[in-house]
């Protein structure tokens, strides 16, 4: 015995396939999905937040050593990656606008472009990681960071043990971020497939919005990671 007499639902809305039975109307479903995604992003903020907390504490304790370590990662590549992600956020909002205005070709193009930017980001990240590997800056048995001057303090050398903490945080934070980027690429692959099949209309593009929110969040995390990791004491 299923309940189909729901208050406030017209006949056409009742039969729209995307409307789930337990919602009163499409607006409630949209609002719930959006709210749910924002709450999920709140959990992600706290998830990264623990790492930022660790970072802040050690940066305060070992500023000179962190500055020396930060100088050894390529800020131009980091800056380029920031620009790449910013462009990808633009293509995301353009994709949603395309869905809102029934421009299927543009939607698909923007989704593909977004993913290309994402892959570019990961590629640049890979180049950076390789550079660190070659310089023996990856924490572990073969880590070495000898005779690196602390910026602004000529003759003083960074403590390798403290520098190793910087690099641990660098790899964990950027690695976790990259993992989220990979998940984002997976999400957008699925969105691309749905868009290709014509599932999105001006009345229904909720998955695009949800994917977009996630992608923008990943962008925002990087907006903070860039100055904190790459730009400690660059002027010295």
């Amino acid at each position, binding site marked *: *015995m*299923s*309940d189909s*007499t*729901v*208050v406030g639902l017209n006949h056409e809305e009742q039969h729209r396939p995307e409307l*789930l*039975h*337990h*919602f*009163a109307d499409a607006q*409630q479903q949209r*609002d*719930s999905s959006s*709210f*749910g995604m924002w*709450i*999920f992003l*709140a*959990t*992600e*903020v*706290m*998830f*990264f*937040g*623990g*790492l930022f*907390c*660790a970072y802040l*504490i*050690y940066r305060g*304790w*070992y500023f000179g050593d962190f500055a020396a370590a930060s100088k050894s990662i390529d800020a131009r590549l980091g800056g380029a990656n920031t620009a790449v992600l910013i462009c990808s956020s633009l293509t995301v909002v353009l994709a949603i606008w395309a869905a809102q205005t029934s421009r299927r070709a543009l939607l698909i193009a923007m989704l593909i472009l977004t993913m290309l930017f994402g892959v570019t980001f990961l590629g640049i990240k890979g180049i950076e990681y390789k550079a660190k590997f070659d310089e023996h800056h990856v*924490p*572990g*048995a073969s880590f070495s960071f000898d005779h690196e001057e602390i910026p602004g303090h000529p003759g003083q050398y960074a*403590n390798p*043990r*403290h520098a*190793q*903490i910087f690099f*641990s*945080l660098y*790899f*964990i934070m950027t690695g*976790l971020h990259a993992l989220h980027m990979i998940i984002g690429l997976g999400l957008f692959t699925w969105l691309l497939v749905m868009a290709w099949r014509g599932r999105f209309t001006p009345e229904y593009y909720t998955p695009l919005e949800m994917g977009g929110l996630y992608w923008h969040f990943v962008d925002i995390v990087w907006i903070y990671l860039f100055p904190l990791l790459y730009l400690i004491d660059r002027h010295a």
Partner: protein
Amino acid sequence: MSMATATVQPVERENYLNKHYGVGSWLFTTDHKRIALLYLISITFFFFIGGFFALLIRLELLTPAGDLVQADSYNKLFTMHGMVMVFFFLIPSIPAVLGNFLVPLMIGAKDLAFPRINLLSWYLYIIGGIMMMHCMLTGGVDTGWTFYTPFSTAFTNTKIVEAGLAIFVAGFSSILTGLNFVVTIHRMRAPGMTWSRLPLFIWAHYATSIIQILGTPVIAITIVLVAVERTLHLGIFDPKLGGDPLLFQHLFWFYSHPAVYIMILPSMGIVSEIIACFSRKRIFGYSFVAFSSIAIAVFGFLVWAHHMFVAGISVYAALIFSLLSYAVAVPSAVKVFNWTATLYKGSIRYDAPMLYAFGFLGLFTIGGLTGLFLACLGIDVHVTDTYFVVAHFHYIMVGGALMGYLGGMHFWWPKISGRLYPEGWARLAALIVFIGFNLTFFPQFILGYVGMPRRYYQYPQEFQVLNVLSTAGATVLGVGYLLPMIYFLWSMRYGRPAPDNPWNAAGLEWKTPSPPTTFNFETEPVVTWEAYNYEELDAPHKEEVPVVR
């Protein structure tokens, strides 16, 4: 609403239990009520696992010598007891069982906002549980449930990473439950169900969900850091690299203190419902009780370092956290005062749920007050890491949270199962639980005060009497827990069929059949009355009078 006749095999209306048959209909359900029952079975299983470890602990502590198990094994026993009880019983229990079942019913919705995510959260819980079981069966963990560094990252050889990942997965389950509740409570209330008409059970679960959402991710990242440090030997907490072991404790307790409010808030919500019903009165100071739930959730995030007073934090930080820890007691006290005021001039009935609520009132008060003793820096230096702390948190967790859970299970059992449990046995079980509990844990306050450390498997001879009392109490307590299991199961086949509202209680859930249909309400309810309208319910032969505010 049909009432079944009093024969042994009543004619069964279609309801959520009998609508579909087969294992698949249960394992792939999206009905919040079925998911609640899936959780009920799972968490009961883990409760007995955790209880089994407790039994072994208490058996070892019967004698002063360490003669039942070796020291390393004892470390594993209390660790596994803590991990299983905290992460696989206490944190999910009320929200995942009673919350899942009742939140949509109480607000007049057909289901939670995200039924498939609800099912996913159960599967995550099960996966985490299987991982934990595997970890325990292949050697377990010996660091204490708090897995402090650097012992957990650099020295122990036990299965830290596996246990940590199990907790990570279970934590994700917790986050999804909280997310679901918040969206549901905001978006899916029936017309007329304003915030100020919500049952306090809903307010309590809302506050709990906030903590689950904001706190759990921090322990998730902490577990990741510990796992990374153990496996890849990157040093964040390693003092040899200049890392700070206390950083682990800060991150760990940032979640684990609010976690204890995850455990107690839902129970407080249950107590509000029970006390109102069995005093036949609106809860005194409804707004205060509602907002105190939110206050507990917020304040709970401000006090975590009171677990670290002797760990090496600065004395100024200790002062700040001590002060904040006193503050966090205030909203809890507000609740206790309001519950007491509700009882005043109420028409008290002593059914089993009410017995559990009374037990909660007394035991939670003792537990809470002893928390204030611990918040005091001077006292804490003396009793920290002794059995005083163990007694304090068991008074809250077992005397508080678990009593509330049992009270709630009895209160809503007719709604969940469509059967009445045997009241005589239930009252007896409540009494046995209360006596057993106090016999188990009150001696531990004394033990801690006179100096017995926690997590020790041997102790000086002069502590034996108290330890024997405690173990005796634990046995009694075990009997008290077994009884409801037995008669609840019995009632599912032989219990008297329950009417829709056996307690004549207020609340939308009681307007559905016992047990409810799959979609809860035939027509969407429109709420025009305040919560706890017991005066109207008890007024004979009167229509429901809508209260216009």
